[in-house]
């Protein structure tokens, strides 16, 4: 839960992060949204409707799949002693099997229901990889709401298939040519639309970003991921928590959806950002490594920016991670030492994409491939008594062109053999890190 109000009376803060930094026009609508959400989430009828739609329409619960061939491939020198080969047991939470192909539908249906409840006839959304746009277009079609999705021109190029999917679902896709022509610019345009049409329109923000109540509302709608995984792990492993839970972090919605359920457990958690193509500003989206505190899109958080406070451009092979700020609650979780954050570069993500395809017959979204790549780093150093849970946040059909393009650029798409000490080194050590890697 958000910790309510801080001493200064600003809303929706997580430690020193979050808040509500928006133009005055949006202040009253945000208060209205907060009241509507706080009321809805306490109403049994609303929760029931949401649960039913997530079950019958979206396809929940998603399976928890034990990826034995992947585990086996990644077994280190001391591995191979597991029941069915391999070292550590790697589980994949299969959000890729949801309707529309990613976790985004959890939040899109939740917010669309809320919009309907608030009497709004129109929803808007921003999208990077297109998954949130497709999910919003889908939920809008399902509930009979009109829908506009903002998408950066660069992203419409990278994610052509999803653009067509949104149009087929009846949504208008508005291409954004300003700035870096990616997710950040799509959010700018969505906010401008919302400011203009706030009386008739609800903005379905797609991640744990933006002004209060979005970061906690989006988190709450995704928490079902972690809650299900806990129950499923209990059945599979005899205990609720894995030794290590991994999720990719763009804005960070799938990661918080997973992590929130495990915060009270003894398990190590790692969020994986986009390391992109290099370490210079503009070449990556690793906010925990290259970011500084700032205010963007309504929230105070880690931001990639220059010394003047101008927002930096970012790069990632994955459109969904290509964003200069991170959800504010993640920064608080980092400060509290509860979740670690690291990054995986484009090359490693592409390699992990191929590895999962070849070992398990699953094409992961390039976002999720970043999480798989982090599992690749740890698995060889973990024992057969241990388990890793990776959130497979989405499927990779949308990324096939990007992956093929990447292969063309660099020739070889095969996974590098897991290396020893080089893969040990995380920026931040966790109190339990040593024991995990014995």
């Amino acid at each position, binding site marked *: 839960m958000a910790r309510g109000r801080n*001493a*200064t*009376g*600003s*809303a929706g803060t997580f430690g020193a992060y979050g*808040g*509500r*930094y*928006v*133009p*005055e*026009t*949006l*202040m*009253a*609508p945000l208060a209205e949204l907060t009241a509507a959400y706080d009321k809805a989430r306490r109403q049994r009828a609303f929760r029931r409707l949401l649960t039913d739609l997530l079950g019958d329409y979206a396809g929940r619960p998603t399976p928890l799949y034990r990826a034995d061939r992947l585990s086996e491939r990644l077994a280190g020198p001391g591995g191979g002693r597991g029941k069915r080969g391999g070292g550590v047991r790697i589980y994949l939470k299969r959000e890729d099997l949801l309707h529309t192909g990613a976790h985004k539908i959890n939040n899109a249906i939740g917010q669309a229901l809320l919009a309907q409840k608030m009497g709004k006839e129109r929803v808007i959304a921003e999208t990077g990889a297109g998954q949130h746009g497709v999910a919003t277009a889908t939920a809008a079609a399902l509930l009979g709401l009109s829908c506009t999705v903002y998408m950066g021109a660069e992203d419409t190029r990278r994610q052509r298939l999803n653009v067509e999917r949104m149009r087929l679902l009846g949504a208008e896709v508005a291409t954004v040519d*300003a*700035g870096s022509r990616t997710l*950040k*610019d799509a959010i*700018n345009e969505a*906010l*401008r639309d919302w*400011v*203009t*049409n*706030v*009386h008739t329109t609800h903005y379905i923000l797609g991640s744990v970003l933006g002004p209060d109540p979005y970061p906690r509302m989006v988190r709450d709608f995704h928490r079902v991921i972690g809650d299900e995984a806990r129950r499923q792990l209990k059945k599979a492993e005899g205990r609720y928590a894995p030794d290590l839970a991994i999720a990719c972090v763009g804005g960070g919605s799938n990661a918080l959806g997973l992590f929130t359920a495990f915060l009270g457990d003894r398990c190590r958690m790692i969020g994986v950002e986009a390391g992109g193509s290099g370490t210079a500003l503009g070449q990556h989206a690793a906010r925990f490594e290259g970011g*500084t*505190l*700032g*205010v*963007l*899109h*309504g929230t*105070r958080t880690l*931001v990639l*920016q220059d*010394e*003047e*406070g*101008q*927002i930096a451009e970012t790069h990632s092979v994955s459109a969904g991670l290509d964003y200069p700020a991170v959800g504010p609650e993640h920064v608080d979780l980092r400060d509290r030492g509860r979740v670690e954050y690291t990054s995986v570069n484009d090359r490693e993500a592409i390699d992990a994409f191929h590895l999962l395809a070849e070992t398990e017959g699953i094409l992961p979204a390039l976002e999720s491939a970043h999480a798989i790549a982090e599992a690749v780093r740890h698995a060889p150093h973990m024992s057969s008594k241990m388990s890793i849970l990776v959130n497979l946040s989405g499927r990779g059909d949308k990324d096939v062109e990007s992956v093929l393009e990447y292969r063309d650029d660099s020739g070889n798409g095969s996974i590098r053999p897991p290396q020893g000490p080089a893969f040990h080194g995380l920026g931040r050590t966790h109190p339990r890190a040593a024991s995990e890697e014995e």
Partner: protein
Amino acid sequence: MSAIDAVFERCREEDRAAFIPFLMAGDPDLATCEQLIGALGAGGADLIELGVPFSDPIADGPVNQAAAARSLAAGTTLDGVFDLVARCRDRLGLPIVLFTYFNPIHARGIERFAEQAAASGVDGVLCVDLPPEEAAERFLPALLSRGLDPVFLLAPTSTKERIAKVAAASRGFVYYVSRTGVTGERSALAPTLLKEVKRVRKRLSLPLAVGFGISSPEQVEAVAGVADGVVVGSALVRLVEDDPKASDLAERVEEQVRQLSAPLRR
């Protein structure tokens, strides 16, 4: 009494609204902008609103967004904006209010920002994405302790409670956003605007300036009938956009200001 208070008092004595033109600092570059600010004064400005360029201006329409991009591309920094103010402020004898987003202030450090703004001669700061709630702890005290007027926004969506909150936090004047939406020229004023402005103004003791979407002398005249100040931005910025290198750009800006402010001087 601040310089901003003095302007509104003088206008009240003259029984007219104040004319408040906006330009983006450093657009198309700092040297040209300095001339344009001179033209604002020559054309009949009472108070000047100067934009601080920001990469992601969510409250601005295409014209001001492009102006910020031009300014940043020309290398404008916050220090450059302060230098510009220092060069113009006293020569012109008109108060200057910075219109900015919060992140450049946050990056500079609130205290240091306030100190430098005051030292350069800035009179007030309007931070468009910083509502009074978020400003209370550090921003407000930093400004007030240095004699800078914090100017906050009201909008058609503002409730009675918010009007009271904004009024309590503001000094100098309160800025009313003429309609829900972003900055930019509109062919017509919002139909309920004049009634709304009267309603809001009754609840304020501070002067109320109206902006966003006002771009013709007729619109200026209509708004001036109910408000204490009229802000015109995009209609001036567009002159820069149309031909940033025009040798007579300053003359064009001056003439535009003269025409737009004419209804206030009859």
